[in-house]
């Protein structure tokens, strides 16, 4: 049990940026992002036992993060007893970097939840086959969806 907890803590520490960036893109405010973060970590912990190492750990983490966010129930109860957060409010635009990040959030957040997952992975520089493995569709489907997403983002850019 101790070895598993250490391993989990190491995995979370190494991937916290990826996990929290997904939460940020899917949430409307800091509290919601924290809720999603909490939820994802719980799901990762539960899934550790069944993780078969058929895919990379990063692929698995992205998959759990996106699945959790896409299907998240915004009316769930908050468990304050074991609260996890990153102690950062990315929704607060107090400097130029924060404003840029908020612009990113505003654009990506306007996409459909599933498309947010695809575009985030594409912006991470992930190849199509890995994106397909994370979101559970074919490579061709990824390619088709990305074309549509890019058009939508360009439209947003022109309208803003």
């Amino acid at each position, binding site marked *: 049990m101790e070895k598993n*907890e250490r391993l989990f803590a190491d995995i979370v520490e190494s991937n916290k940026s990826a996990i929290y*960036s997904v939460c940020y893109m899917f949430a409307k405010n800091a509290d919601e992002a924290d809720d999603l973060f909490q939820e994802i970590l719980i799901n990762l912990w539960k899934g550790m036992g069944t993780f078969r190492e058929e895919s990379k750990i990063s692929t698995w983490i992205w998959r759990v993060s996106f699945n959790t966010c896409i299907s998240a129930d915004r009316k769930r109860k908050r468990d304050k007893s074991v609260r*996890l*957060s990153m102690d950062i409010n*990315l929704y607060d635009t107090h400097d130029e970097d924060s404003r840029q990040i908020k*612009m990113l959030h505003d654009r990506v957040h306007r996409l459909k939840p599933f498309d947010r997952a695809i575009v*985030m992975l594409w912006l991470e520089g992930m190849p199509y*086959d890995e994106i397909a493995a994370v979101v559970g569709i074919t490579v061709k489907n990824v390619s088709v969806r990305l074309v549509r997403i890019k058009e939508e983002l360009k439209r947003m850019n022109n309208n803003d």
Partner: protein
Amino acid sequence: MIMDKNIEGFEELKSQVEMLKNKLSKEEIINERLMRKTMSTRVNDVERYLYKVCAMGIVAMTLVAFDFLVLFPLSIWFVIATEVLLLGCLVFVYFNKKLVSSDNIMSGNLIEERRRLVRFKKREIRYFFISVPLLIGWGTWLTLEILGSAAEKDEMYAFLIGAGIGGAVGFIVGTRMFRKMLSNVNDVISQIEELTEQP
């Protein structure tokens, strides 16, 4: 592996993603329970080290009595002095162990636990610097006892070489275990200081 290198028009988004990643990479996950669990595991390693030292001490006391009274008889004063030294070690470990508790790290006052760990560490270091000269003195006495014994020359040298190699290996292994234990204690002390400074 198909990669889409066509990010033309999306450079701004890409750079914003990099900014987001940079910001997040500097942040820490805050969870006191998770940190306490990690610290408690380290303190548990320290407790296991102390139990191992105790176990070795008890085994050593038995072996000393058997070896130096039956197998390779040496003077009774040497045996008594050795047993007293080993008993002293066990008593020290017993009392020092009271300062270390992985259960208290999980549920106790961390500032108080930090104080106890600092006291534990100081005592262990002091004990190390006292025991090394005592060990050298004991080793010298052992050598003189063996050379002055009634055993055959071959037997004597075999014993001395064996004791020498065993002693050197034991010292190296023991020192490494001691340093790892101290490293664990230092890590826990630093983590408590970090945790208790947070608002």
